[in-house]
């Protein structure tokens, strides 16, 4: 009997705090969040059950579709540029510059708070006094209201976050590159494969599991962009940069509509789960060609 239960007693002691944290701040909130999404609840008073009303309202809500569109625009721009630049940087680090100093320098923006990065670029991209507009006017380009124009707000926010994350993503890919056995490159060399050929036939297939993981992590992360938007544009101008998490925040804390905000976050949750699932499936992320 004791041998079957093993160290159960002492194990319960050791996982007790973690279980408290898990139940109180992950499990119960998850259930409560789903429950609240079926209610009308404005923080004062009790939630009233209204069934699917929040969800039907959301699907007819133009601001929701706008937020979704803005978020997807952001995700595509952010992930597209970030992945390509990071892959390039990772290859550079792998081939020519393995130094920790250079890797460290590229990682620095990632270690600094989103808020600080946002304020820094808010200043550098300022319409009147920002150095970027200053340089653009030196070379004869027109000034751009980066955060202040509907057209540029999202691309600008995407750019700021590419700048912050490119070194981090590059390091993740770099770690994957280092796991590729050298002898495969030697074989490719003996066969006279060009660098481009080697890249597409050796590096990319073997890097795929790492790339998929990086994509899943970064896509899920960028669907939840908030800090940069909150500090720079606050969702504006008009609705141009009101990403989905900003919309949830405004519904909950601006309009005290917790039921609606909960339904929005359930939808976001479902989207993220689908994105992860599809990425893992289609890109076969859990299989490595090495095996």
């Amino acid at each position, binding site marked *: 009997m004791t041998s079957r239960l*093993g*160290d*159960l007693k*002492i*194990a319960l002691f050791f*996982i007790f*705090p*973690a279980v*408290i*944290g898990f139940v*109180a*701040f*992950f499990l*119960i909130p998850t259930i*409560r*969040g789903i429950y609240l999404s079926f209610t009308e609840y404005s*923080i004062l008073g009790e939630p009233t059950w209204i069934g699917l009303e929040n969800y039907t309202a959301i699907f007819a809500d133009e601001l929701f579709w706008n937020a979704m569109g803005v978020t997807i625009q952001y995700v595509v721009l952010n992930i597209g540029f970030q992945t390509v630049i990071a892959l*390039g940087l990772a290859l*550079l*680090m792998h*081939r*020519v*510059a393995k130094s*920790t100093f250079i*890797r*460290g*320098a*590229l*990682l620095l*923006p990632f*270690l*600094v*708070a*989103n808020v*600080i990065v946002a*304020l*820094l670029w808010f*200043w550098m991209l300022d319409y*009147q006094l920002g*150095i970027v507009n*200053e340089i653009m006017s030196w070379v004869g380009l027109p000034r751009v209201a980066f955060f202040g124009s509907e057209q540029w707000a999202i691309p600008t926010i995407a750019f700021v976050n590419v700048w912050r994350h490119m070194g981090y993503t590059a*390091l*993740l890919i*770099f*770690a994957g590159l280092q796991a590729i056995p*050298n002898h495969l*490159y030697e074989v490719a060399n003996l066969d006279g494969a060009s660098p481009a050929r080697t890249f597409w036939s050796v590096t990319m297939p073997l890097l795929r599991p790492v790339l998929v*993981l990086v994509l899943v992590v970064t896509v*899920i992360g960028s*669907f*939840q962009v*908030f800090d940069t938007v*909150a*500090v720079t544009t606050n969702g504006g101008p008009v609705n141009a940069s009101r990403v989905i998490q900003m919309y*949830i925040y405004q519904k909950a*804390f601006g309009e005290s509509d917790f039921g609606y905000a909960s339904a929005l*976050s359930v939808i*976001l*949750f479902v989207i993220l*789960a689908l994105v992860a699932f599809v990425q893992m499936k289609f890109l076969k992320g859990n299989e490595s060609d090495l095996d």
Partner: protein
Amino acid sequence: MTTSTAPRKNASRQNSRSSGLSPKKPINWRRAGAWVLVAVAVAVTIAPFLWMLRTALSSNSALASNAGNLLPADFSWGAFKRVLGLQTIDEAIADGGSGAAINFWLYLRNSVIFATITTAGQVFFSAMAAYAFARLRWPGRNKVFAVFLTTMMVPPIFTALPNFLMIKNLGLLNTMAGMSLPFLFMTPFAIFFLRQFFLSMSREVEEAAMLDGAKHLRIFFQIVLPNAAAPIATLALLTFIGQWNEYFWPLLVGQDESVRVLTVGLSVFKSQSPQGALDWSGLMAGTLVAALPIFLLFIAFGKKVVNSIGFSGIK
């Protein structure tokens, strides 16, 4: 076509050994080009931080007329003094401040408390759980671990609203406890991270200690924790940086001046200024000072952080 047929891997190896010292060797343009790209990337990363410093050392009123000057415009420590509360409001306005104040020392103290408490609790309790998942044998162990891992998938925004309501119901809004509790006990990532290391430790030392009659608590504190000091330190470092930078949760729960952390303080400082009259040098001085602990940690432990990123990517 000419150089591309040369075996690339060998070429790069020879280069790194002789690094172009041999006079016979022609300049490798590919490599030179690659180094130029590396230099550009590093410049693009570092230059904005230098611009931050340049702005912070400028006098705010001079910035407007010297927007493109690469050196500080009308060099002044005023912005730092303003941020650190060493100037009166009148002096600050005379010096080009907007009149918006930032209670820097209070926010700094709050950030230190918040990041330290949450890091210490999270790492310690996660280490305890990781020990149970890695070193103890009990029924259901792997199932429970799998359930813990699934919470990695739940996005923070999803739990943030119900957690806010719970903290509010508990009467803990605008308290350090309310800000810290959700981070205090565990993250699936921390447990996962430490479990990996605990799994790889040899059982022999542990069994020898057992024979001597040591109990699990002693084994945990005297054998497992000291032996895992390096990964624990790395995890603590990454956690601290993450907590120091946390914005969303303190924004929801810690709005009150008494518990406001630096990230929230800076955004309030920015939004308090009337539109179009931002105190840029004050703002940049504030961001620099707020990022200073991260810069210092990075100078001290940079290598550790950089080398741990490959692993932490699983996050």
